[in-house]
């Protein structure tokens, strides 16, 4: 995963301008800012609002509605574990609980070394290969305790 940049007002302005002519530009802009900065900082909300001539309340409302638009940076790696029914039927909750316990975090938490964030997600569309996960955007199917341990070890390094 690339190192994510610090807040940069100029860069943010460029991103907003590059997407500003789209019909319904708010979500594409927020996604682009998320890609660039790893989260949606408070400064971004004010800037997007003023550049698009919308109120801060409107942008804040949009940002706070969606699970993806995190307000704080995540760990260096992100593991999304599916919590929906197909994965439940294949022992997903047990595997997830064990991993979280091992890492000493809850859903959405980041390990104390800042290496790994574990998030719950409702369905990745890998339901015929349950239980499933997404690790830094790459799909993982037929996940078991061992594979998750390996991922966690790799993420946290030596």
């Amino acid at each position, binding site marked *: 995963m690339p190192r994510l940049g610090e807040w940069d007002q100029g860069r943010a302005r460029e991103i907003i301008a590059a997407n500003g002519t*789209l*019909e*319904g*530009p*708010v*979500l*594409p802009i*927020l*996604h682009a800012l998320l890609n660039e900065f790893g989260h949606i900082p408070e400064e971004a909300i004010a800037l997007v609002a003023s550049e698009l001539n919308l109120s801060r309340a*409107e942008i804040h*409302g*949009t940002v706070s*509605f*969606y*699970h*993806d*638009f995190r307000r704080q940076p995540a760990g260096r790696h992100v593991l*999304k574990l*599916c919590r*929906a*029914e*197909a*994965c*439940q*039927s*294949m022992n997903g909750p047990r595997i997830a609980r064990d991993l979280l316990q091992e890492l000493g975090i809850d859903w959405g938490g980041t390990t104390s070394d800042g290496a790994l964030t574990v998030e719950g*997600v*409702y*369905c*990745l*569309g*890998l*339901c*015929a*290969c*349950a239980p*499933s996960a*997404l690790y830094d*955007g*790459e*799909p*993982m*199917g*037929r996940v078991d305790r061992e594979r998750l341990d390996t991922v966690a070890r790799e993420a946290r390094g030596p």
Partner: protein
Amino acid sequence: MIRIFISRDSASVSVGSVRIARLVCEEAAVRGLILETALTGSRGLFWLEPLVEVETPGGRIAYGPISPSDVGSLFDADFLTGAEHPLRLGRLEDQPYLARQQRLTFTRCGIVDPLSVEDYEAHGGYAGLRRALSLEPQAIVNEIKLSGLRGRGGAGFPTGIKWDTVLHAQADRKYIVCNADEGDSGTFGDRMLMEGDPFSLIEGMTIAGLAVGAAKGFIYIRSEYPYAYRTMTDAIALATKAGCLGPSLMGSDQAFTLETRLGAGAYICGEETSLLDSLEGKRGMVRAKPPLPAIAGLFGKPTLINNTLSLATVPWILANGGQVYADFGMGRSRGTLPIQLAGNVTRGGLIELAFGATLREIVEDFGGGTATGRPVKAVQVGGPLGAYFPASMLDLPLDYETLAAEKGLLGHGGIVVFDDSVDLSQQARFAFEFCAAESCGKCTPCRVGAVRGVEVMDRIIAGIEPEKNFEVLEDLCTLMTDASLCAMGGLTPLPVMSALTHFPEDFDKAPQVPAAAE
């Protein structure tokens, strides 16, 4: 040169298809063999994946499921000529799982290169659009009406009627929107199609544009599907370059352009009106209807919003005729249904069949029972808002009306299998928990009801005053069903009440014994 085919569908990748491809290429290089690797979507036989198909004079011969340690022995057995090997499956078309299907919507998925317009056309693609370009808009709409196609997103509304409404709405601009926010657990057909045959969706939307008089379309894809988003975005660029999208469709004076849009993690945006609000950049809040999106939709303009699989079926209907499509199916459910079989099942995958197959055929004949080898206890049909049916009801045929009559729904065609270790009271609790997490919050029955539902279920599970709490539960479910603004709150009672109706023993908890004083 020898050609091999490997699936880059994200489910295939999730079980190691790309890794196997790399190992095969490395081993070939070591042995001085030159290979051409063609990347395709998946055929949807996921228990056989990762698999490799080899092009031979006798067709594509498949080998799978391959683990990294099998690669050497495949070369030793000369698998590149289609030779015998314990993992040799023969042609996938001859697998009963695939041979028994009627693949119309998924006819090309897993066969073609998803990012080649030429390959798409070589396999029958763009025949529908060519025909549509020669027809009057009303004639295109009539063809869809004749096909009997109903919305594959779950509501099952007749697609042709929706198209007719948008066609006759007067406005300076209209939009086509594809709902690819496939959030139901157990469903993956939209994802497979977008990753394996994206041009069929592009062609379907283009035809829709011609039919209703719209020149602009959006595909709203959930962010949990990064592969589908990339494939669709790339396919749109390729179709534009090939003149199949843009200011002059196939050299005609008709225009149509498409853009992908990424969701941001909100189940509710699969509800069409909240999807439209999300596209506009707002919170994904459900709108009250009327007005229908067909009259006042995206940016207040008449908007045709259809599910991915509805739109991707349109090219087949135009190319082969609405009546041919309508000849499949039963009752008022015409055509084929891409069923997605998932969860605790031996042979999970994509099963496209004419409406009317029974749950038993799907779960037992196709699926081979549970993956754990234990008895099937429940199947949930139609996603998180669908009912749980017991093993004794597996003879139900899959069509919209039959399932509705049994207080269930067909939804987007996902079926999740559970073995006898499942506790249906926990599943009922989860239905409320999910609704509480994903409710848009606009209407009170859903926003508050879901939270109260979790609390009531917790008391029932703990054995606290069960009779009183069952009464509260039923009252709450009635209220949510009758008073919620959309299907999220309105249908959450379906899994809850079906669990209670069909599996009462799971709710019969021992009364809580007060803890002894320390």
